[in-house]
């Protein structure tokens, strides 16, 4: 991948770095800028939330350990004001941190020590699907699944005519299941198509996102009628 292609591809893509360690923030900024991103910085959770509204970043990189408050609650607050893709940065891969981050609304996670090259691959995966959702589909497509109506090109999903507020990743996951037309999609397939993991990723990402999706589209998330678990295989959307 040469530098010219990188730069043309991610023109004006802005990453907001929320990280309390000054040196890490500077090093990541330099490396991400080298990868062709524009970088905005915040040292505290408070500051980070303000920047999200002020500078409308394309993606947020959020450290779990912050001085004023932990990354999970920042993520929850952020979700109330924006559907921007969020990547959690954890120092540990312990179940607790990863699942807590995803449940707080993060779209993906990376662990330290993180290298800008891998990081930019993850960011691109998040941004690419955000773009394909609008560009690549058939025009004016509508998918109906019971009381749900999904319009991939509009980025819209309604239940009995009421629009539902999904994040971009949740929406993309729903569209991916909807286009399978009732067939089962394995966790690995979903990780590949929705998150861009060519190689096996962490299937907890899928499970937590499915849980979040159910909380929004199902009337009774404990007894889902739309997003169905196919035991040992994956998930499918009942149409």
């Amino acid at each position, binding site marked *: 991948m040469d530098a010219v292609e990188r730069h043309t591809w991610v023109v004006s893509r802005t990453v907001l770095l929320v990280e309390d*360690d000054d*040196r*890490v923030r*500077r*090093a*990541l900024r*330099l*490396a991400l800028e*080298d990868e062709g991103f524009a970088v905005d910085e915040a040292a505290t959770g408070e500051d980070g939330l303000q920047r999200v509204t002020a500078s409308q970043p394309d993606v947020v990189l959020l450290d779990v*350990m912050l001085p004023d408050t932990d990354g999970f609650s920042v993520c929850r607050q952020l979700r109330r004001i924006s559907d921007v893709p969020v990547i959690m940065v954890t*120092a*540990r*891969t*312990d*179940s607790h941190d990863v699942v807590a981050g995803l449940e707080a609304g993060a779209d993906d996670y990376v*662990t*330290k*020590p*993180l*290298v*800008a*090259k891998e990081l930019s691959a993850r960011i691109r995966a998040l941004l690419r699907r955000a773009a394909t959702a609008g560009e690549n589909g058939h025009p004016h497509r509508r998918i109906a699944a019971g009381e749900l109506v999904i319009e991939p090109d509009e980025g819209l999903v309604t239940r009995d005519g009421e629009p539902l507020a999904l994040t971009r990743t949740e929406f993309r996951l729903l569209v991916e299941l909807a286009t399978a037309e009732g067939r089962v999609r394995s966790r*690995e397939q979903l990780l590949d198509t929705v998150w861009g993991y*060519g*190689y*096996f990723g*962490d*299937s907890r990402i899928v499970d937590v996102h499915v849980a979040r999706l159910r909380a929004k589209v199902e009337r009774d998330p404990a007894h889902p009628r739309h997003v169905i678990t196919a035991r*040992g295989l994956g998930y499918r959307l009942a149409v």
Partner: protein
Amino acid sequence: MKTRRVREHARRGLWRHLRVGLRDRVILLFGLLGLVLTAALALTVWLLVSRYLVNQRMNTVVDEARFNAVSVQSGLGQYGLSVPEVMDRLATSRSSFALLNTDGEWYASAPRQGPRSLPSDLVKLVHSGVPATQRVDVEGQLLIAVGLPLDRSGDAYFELFQLDDLNRALSILSLTLVGAALAVSVVAMAFGRVVTRLALRPLAELTSVASAVARGDLGARLHGEDDPDLGGLARSFNHTADLLQRRVAADIRFAGDVSHELRTPLTTMLNSLELVQHRREELPGSVREPLDLLSEDLRRFSRLVVDLIDISRYDGQPAGEREEVRVVDLVRAAADATAGRPVTAVDPAAKDLVVHADKRRLERVVANLVENAELHGGGCLRVCVDAEVESVRIAVEDAGPGVPIEQRDRIFERFARTGPRRVGGVGLGLAIVASHVSWHGGRIWVEDREGGGARFVVSLPAEEV
């Protein structure tokens, strides 16, 4: 200390030799004690009762004999009856018979009895005018002989009493006493059993709690800290367990803190260096070699930190999340991605095999083995997945120098250095593999590949879907 232990050992030698446990010993002792006490009691009872019964009987028979003697005397003297008439009128019971010695002749109330049945000492004593009683043994039967001199000199009346009923009563009594003694010792053993169970219950609880702690359940505690006898033990055990739990928690926290503290500066270093590497061409030639060295070792250092944190985190973590993983898919994805080219060869029979695995750990196993083959085995030749009986075999083959037999176990130890072949990475990769494989209930070994090189084989329990 040592001598005490030796003596202790000698004292317990017999029990230990017989392999009798504490509980059985107590039960036996209880039984023995019961037996000894009741036997002594039974013996005393028997002696007293038999003496009393015999004395009582003596008095009765002497009275009866005296009455009969008077009646004989009066019959012969006052009424002038003949001897047979007198004998017929005697009030002898079924268990006694009379002998009369008058005018030098002997008369008996029963045909088979005669003066021979009487001891001669008794006869002599009675003839000398002294009434006497003696126990005699006639043909194995114990009898009481009572002799009374009559008024006419030379005449004497004897009566022999059978003691059958008394003997029967005494033998019933002794049987009863022996039975009671045995019953009491059985009851004592049962009591001993109950008592030892009660007494050993805290020990059983201690055993189960201690083994729970050993299994990794550090929250297990003994009850009964307020028990006056066992409180000390319970308190000191619980205290020790508290310390252990706190220590383990501190270790885990420490590993987490170290993780964060080391990963954060590593992030700075890796990213800054990556940037410099991108600008490599702009740098003077003399700087490029040290830059490469720095960059390579920084990557090694980073890998070491991640491995160390990984291995310390999984240490002492018996449980984990498992899911059904199609092993072929996982091996193919992990192996091909690590090698950067297709290396996986699949036995068709293994296609549908599923392993209950922690996916990330199993990926790590495959990735580390392939990486090991790439770095130290002259490149990974292929990764085979084969179906076995209720298991799956993953074999990673390389064309390197192989692993000498004497190092085949050591190679899976942490920081193992395999001779002159000082591995470029660090000695944790294979140790992590071994620990993850055993966590999944599998086995790992290394063998020679036909045609040179090494084959690392992982065998995991698997099932068909």
